[in-house]
């Protein structure tokens, strides 16, 4: 079985991370923003997994933790979005500038 080159996997990870970051910057819909963050997390996960054949299984353990934290984050984040939506009738973050100045 031919191994996937580490560089290629990492390159994919970098590309996905950049796309996620791009999304975070250009989108104003809070939910899509969240999804972009999930995308970036996954890019990192990919890097972890890509390293695990080389550096041992700890990378996968970390991915496990990342997924757990992402799940928690998604739960709380979505709860916050729901809560804010009740007030503002919107998920557009341009309406959420409460902490300004």
């Amino acid at each position, binding site marked *: 079985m031919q191994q996937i080159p580490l560089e290629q996997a990492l390159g994919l990870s970098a590309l996905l991370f950049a796309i996620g*970051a791009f999304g975070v*910057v250009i989108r*104003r819909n809070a939910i899509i923003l969240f999804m972009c963050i999930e995308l970036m997390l996954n890019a990192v996960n990919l890097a972890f997994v890509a390293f695990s054949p080389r550096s041992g299984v700890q990378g996968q353990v970390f991915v496990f933790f990342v997924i757990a934290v992402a799940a928690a984050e998604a739960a709380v984040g979505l709860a916050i979005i729901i809560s804010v939506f009740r007030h503002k009738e919107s998920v557009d973050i*341009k309406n959420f*500038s*409460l902490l300004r*100045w």
Partner: protein
Amino acid sequence: MLLLQEAAVHATSAAAGQAGESFAAFAPWLILALPLLGFVLNGLLSITAARRALPALPPVGDPHWDAHHEPSEQEHHAHGDDAHPAAHADDHGAHGHDAHGHGPKPATHTLPSFIAPGVLIAAFAVAVVNFLRMLAAHPETAWVHEYWSWMPVNDPTGALRVGAAIQLDQLSMLMTLVITGVGSLIHVFSVGYMKEDPGYPRYMAYLNLFVFFMLTLVLGASYPLMFVGWEGVGLCSYLLIGFWFKERANADAGKKAFIVNRIGDFGFLIAMFLLFANLGTLNFAEVMERAPAQMAFGGAVVTAVCLFFFLGAAGKSAQIPLYVWLPDAMAGPTPVSALIHAATMVTAGVYLVARSATLFTMAPVASLVVALVGTATAIFAASIGLKQWDIKKILAYSTVSQLGFMFAAVGMGAYVAGVFHLMTHAFFKACLFLGSGAVIHAMHEALHHTHSDMDAQDVRNMGGLRRYLPVTFWTMGIATLAIAGVPPFAGFFSKDEITGAAWDGAHGQLPLAAGLAKVGIDGTLWFGLIWGALSIAAFMTAFYMGRMMIYTFFGQNRTGEEERKHLHEGSWTLTLPLVVLALASTFGGFLNVEREVPIVRWFDFGQGEALHRWLHPVLAGADQVAEANGIAGAAVEPSAVPIAVAILLGLGGLALAWTMLSRRALRTAAEEPAYANGVERVLYHKYYVDELYDRVVVRTVGWLSRLQAGFDRYVVDGLVDFGGKMSEWLGVALGRFQTGQVNTYAFAILIGVTLVLYAFVHT
């Protein structure tokens, strides 16, 4: 009893032999402790009295409630009626003669009558005991005893050792006797004068405290300790001038006295620093011992020391340019004027110069300055005294003038003459002030009965009082003769010694003249000037004193019909001190009569010059300095001229006053204008010096203070606040970047990540 025992001891010890070193002081600390005890007791009584008096406060708005004070010329009340301290005891007594004012007085107002004079008389007794012992032993060195170490600092570069020590020598002994003696009499007088005042215990407490500090001043064995008394008497003076503090003018006068005195104290402090920096000690004995060796004769240092000391003395003793507080100080009760502002405190400057005789002998230039300033003050104040109408103001300027005489004397190196005049002045001026107090007391009582609003202190409103106040008249008359320099009263001898010294100096026979010659100044002209000026001042003195007596006691009575009925002499507590002081004014001069002087030689005074011999050990240091520098005065050839001139001027002044005024029908203040022409106007307004000081000094300082306060508020603090504002603005400006848009933040993070990555990749 104590006195008798002591006299016996003295007799036996005198019989035992003239052992000069056998002087043993008898508990000199008691002299200090007794007045302090009096202060503590009276102070406690006063606080008790004040607290008890509180619930009985009348409603605010009662016009008589604020009026418990002695009126002076500044005060013009709608009713001048209840203005006298003795008029009525309590605040509502002015009209309503309710039982409160006439009931038995509480203990707080009776006990001070015994405590205050009691402690003073006891202190006087202790002083006399010590005097007798000193008389017997006549020690050549001062008796010094340190009770505890006050400010010890063991600086390796020069240790400071100042002990709480008493120095008893002939000079401090003399001063102590004057202070406790005259002080006792004035305390007795105060009992009669002030006992109806609601603040009586407080008054007595202050008076006792004053005596304590005054004694500290003269008994302290070092300059710092003297300074304790020096400032302490200033405090008491401040409190007593402002004793009737509800009248703003009185409180102002007290404040003025304190601040002007503090200017002098500044000089005293600097002089002490200079002494310590150069001699490494501040104790009298050591200073006098080291000064001739460690400081150059006529050098800059010793001159500066002496001039700064003189600044201090000028403040305390009301010399030009710091004399302005003393006339205002008459706002205090009259016995205070007698004790503090005539007899004792104001002479502290003379005492300081005499005490530092060694230093002043070493500094001829400074001495000449002292003499000239004294002379100028003497003639300047005497001229103002010519045209004052307030009886106490006349006496106040007279005091300033007489102090000028004393400074002229000590400045010329005639220390004994200065101290002699100090002593006789204490007698006759205290007598005059107390007499004026008795007059004012009587006037008030009379004016009070008819609710007249005449000024009780204006001599124009008096007249013919000799019929109603005979004791006061005769005693004041004697004192007037004394101050005018009529022989054989006390003032003649002392003043004659001063003018005689100037006369000698003009003939180059004073040590100071030789000293001045040594530093290249021809002093004879200056001394001639001093003699002339002092003679004119003496003439003026005789004139204004005669004028005051004539206005007060001669001619028609001008108080009015109704008031006249109530004019009468006060109780024995008022008259007894007057009599005693009049006797002292009469005979006090014989203490230092010169034996070989023409005219006087006709009377036989035995050995003569008792004071000279008494003070000789104290001034030995100065004499040694003079001898060592070859300036000891040539043998003085007594001359009859100055004596004759002095007698002529004294009698002439009185006679001039008599001829000018006795024939005229004198008029009251309402009718007689305060001044007639330009010269009189300037004199009446005291040469406008107060106004000048107000413009030049007071307002400038006030203006500078306000300027600085503004500077502090708007510039110094403004800069600080500006710093705060800057950061606030910066915060607002940078806050604009906080758009609240998550995208922006994310983008900022992205930029940051890029930069970090870039750095990571490129290292």
